[in-house]
């Protein structure tokens, strides 16, 4: 997905007839409002349906707090790891020629095309009681599945490509001439990276981190499979939302949903800002 799409109107001296224009706008906006705006509004309505008091007490429940902590922890581990990977992979792929490079690019995209449930299943197969390494872990009383490590691993898998996918096209387009210039002026590899490459990719990097984080915090399907749904221990916030909903505790469910929706909105705002920064910078 292209990161920087401006909202300037496509220039054409030919205009569609007014009636065409307005009907299309109505259809488009109607569609968007129905499918996108209404859900957001509904989250707020439902969350506060029993008043502010109920909302805040739902948020301070220990299970809810534990879920939020777990979600945060997962993000704090997976996002930096995948960011480091993304940068290393982008450097390797865009600055060198080697056999198998195209295969590597395709493999990096793999987690995107795998269904979330399958993404969780593979870790159950690997570390579950009947899994390959399962018995070794049971003997050493280390729990992977139905425990936090499993959740982290599944999230790591799911959010794997995000940063790399933002950096690779950008660095490919930028070319390596500035880095070659820095090297010719006597800079070492690290200096070249930090003083020349990093400033040029910083917006795309932030953008990738943002998307990675949003997905890490919001992942549901894969985490659902590996977590075991143990209240207070292995429920992330999205899982807590599911559990509450299934128990008809709608205030709790939508309170949790409101946090996640808020996160989504912040992500969208930051995303728009970063896109704007990128297009403005791209006049070079």
């Amino acid at each position: 997905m292209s990161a920087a799409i401006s909202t300037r109107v496509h220039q054409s001296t030919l205009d569609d007839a007014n009636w065409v224009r307005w009907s299309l706008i109505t259809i488009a906006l109607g569609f968007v409002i129905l499918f996108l705006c209404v859900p957001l509004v509904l989250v707020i309505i439902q969350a506060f349906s029993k008043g502010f008091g109920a909302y805040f007490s739902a948020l301070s429940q220990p299970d809810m707090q534990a879920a939020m902590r777990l979600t945060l922890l997962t993000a704090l581990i997976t996002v930096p790891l995948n960011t480091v990977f993304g940068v290393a992979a982008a450097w390797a792929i865009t600055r060198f020629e080697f056999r198998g490079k195209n295969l590597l690019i395709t493999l990096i995209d793999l987690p995107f095309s795998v269904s979330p449930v399958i993404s969780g299943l593979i870790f159950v197969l690997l570390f579950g009681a009947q899994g390959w390494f399962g018995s070794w872990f049971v003997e050493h009383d280390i729990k992977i599945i139905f425990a936090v490590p499993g959740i982290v691993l599944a999230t790591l898998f799911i959010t794997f490509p995000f940063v790399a996918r933002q950096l690779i096209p950008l660095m490919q387009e930028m070319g390596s001439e500035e880095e070659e210039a820095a090297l010719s002026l006597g800079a070492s590899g690290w200096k070249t990276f930090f003083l020349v490459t990093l400033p040029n990719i910083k917006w795309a990097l932030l953008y990738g981190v943002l998307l990675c984080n949003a997905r890490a915090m919001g992942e549901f399907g894969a985490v659902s499979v590996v977590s075991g749904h143990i209240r207070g221990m292995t429920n992330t916030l999205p899982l807590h939302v599911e559990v509450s909903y299934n128990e008809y505790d709608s205030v709790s469910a939508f309170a949790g949903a409101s946090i996640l929706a808020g996160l989504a909105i912040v992500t969208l705002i930051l995303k728009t800002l970063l896109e704007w920064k990128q297009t403005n910078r791209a006049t070079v």
Partner: protein
Amino acid sequence: MSILLSNISKNFGQFAALHDIDLEIPEGELVALLGPSGCGKTTLLRIIAGLEQADKGKIFLNGDDKTDLHVSQRGIGFVFQHYALFRHMTVFDNVAFGMRVKDKKVRPSEAEIAKKTHALLELVQLDWLHNRFPDQLSGGQRQRIALARALAVEPSVLLLDEPFGALDASVRKDLRQWLRNLHHELNVTSIFVTHDQEEAMEVASQVVVLNKGRIEQQGSPAEIYDYPANEFVSKFIGQTNEFTLEHQTVDWFKHIGLLISEQSKVAHVRPHDIEIAKSTNNDTPITLKDWQHLGALIRIELMKNLPNGKPKLVYVEMPNEQFKRLQLNRGDKVDLKIRHAHWFN
């Protein structure tokens, strides 16, 4: 610093970009690597810089074998075709970069760096732009900043890749002169790559003509022009007329003053080495077709009917005044006289 290249070869997959290049460049020269696209000149430049690795051969800079040294340690300055200025840094920071990334032990103080940077920017007459960013500069300005940046690290050899290729014609002309003057001032051994033979002849003190990965000739502009080593150089540099031997024209050759030797097959004649006069003989095969004003010179197109019936164009150049005195018109029959020719096999 003098440069010696010995037996340099480079292949890109199946394609042989450079074959066994031997090249020696004395200190202080301003050398042009000249040739058509694909001749290997940019590859050669990048190999000297260390931005490419030769498959075979050695590179000596000032007597030291630098073949295996990384580009960051060769002490060269490189100016890229599209300048490669650091887009996120000001002009000042761009030029100061090379000094700032030096090892702590040898790094000058910020004050010294600032002094030197401003001095360099003064040298290229752009100190007033020191706070701007590259995207706010014109092409010619970027070119000069790129040069200042490369000079900041006091390189012993300066390498420029098609330095004027991306610029407007008028800017190009000015910068050529400017580069030549700068070189006189600084006296750093410099090599630049170009496909424009006029540029090479105008700017360089030594020209190396390359074709298909081989050196065709190396010499001063005068030597290359007056004594081309082979057909390729003769045709590539300046204008030529080609006359090939066909049996019936042997007499005609003698008639126009061309001496034939046993092995020679083709004569190359420069347009200004041909004299023409109105012909009194109506059987002459040469007609004056047209002429073009090129400022101080006139280029005259003559048409000659070959024995096989096809027409051949011959180009003659002479000063305006001289042409006026001849009082020729389009369609007139003319006689040729060749003053000087180069024969090739």
